[in-house]
């Protein structure tokens, strides 16, 4: 294999996204990371810590996968392949935690 672009085999179907858009995504990621740390240190938010951190984590995860990894613009087959592994991993985590009594 030469390692050249497989144009005939379906190179990314993404539209041409500008560098400014990528920078905007990176700024959002940085701001969300700062928010996570801020929430961690604010005692008044302690009861909501888990929920807030999980939401911020999922949004950051989704932003990178959708836009930096171009899954939003790529073929659904790739989303299916990734989602299959991801959901299986989440299932394993939740199932094992349940088995070991981590949910009370």
């Amino acid at each position, binding site marked *: 294999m030469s390692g050249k672009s497989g144009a005939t085999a379906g190179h990314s179907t993404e539209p041409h996204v500008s560098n400014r858009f990528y920078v905007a995504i990176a700024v959002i990621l*940085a701001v969300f990371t700062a928010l996570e740390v801020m929430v961690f240190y604010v005692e008044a938010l302690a009861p909501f810590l888990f929920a807030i951190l999980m939401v911020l984590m999922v949004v950051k995860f989704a932003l990178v996968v959708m836009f930096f990894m171009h899954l939003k613009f790529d073929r659904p087959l790739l989303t299916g392949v990734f989602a299959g*592994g991801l959901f299986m991993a989440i299932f*394993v985590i939740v199932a094992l935690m349940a088995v070991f009594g981590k949910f009370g």
Partner: protein
Amino acid sequence: MEGPSSTGVSNRKLAMWTFIGSECMLFGTLIATYLIYRGRNVVGPYPDELLNIPFITVTTFVLLMSSLMMVLALAAIERNDLKKTKIWLFMTALFGLIFLGGQYYEFNHFVHEGLPLSRNLFSSTFFVLTGTHGGHVAGGVIWLGTLFVRATQGKLDATHAETVEIAGLYWHFVDVIWIVLFTLIYLLV
């Protein structure tokens, strides 16, 4: 040159996404193990005594920004802008190295504070989980280094955009795994 694919997706790209899906399961099992044993240490030092949130926030920021540089490298090679491709590939690898330096410092600090790998449940699961991630980062840095060398030798141009894209998929995956680990290990202590 790669031939047509029956799926409509390049075989190499499909292979990388399949690999990433399987990596999700690998990290899923390691994360599950970490979460199951969290808070069950019978001897110290304990995580809240050692974890340095400001320091790890900086290294997390470095890794997040390396993802931006990776996607800028891909955009550059798609425009056949080889000079910027080289710059962004180099910067991505450099930021990856900075992250690894931070991880080395953190590991060293933990061991110095009396927390070697086999000290307690936290140390075993923490070192295995973050060490596995660090190994992936190191692999990514080597991969990016080879791409940078090829670009410097003039062996990388717009026809190799997919090669850079596939390396980028791996690098971004390493980044998203760290997004999860940063929250689960450091912020939800």
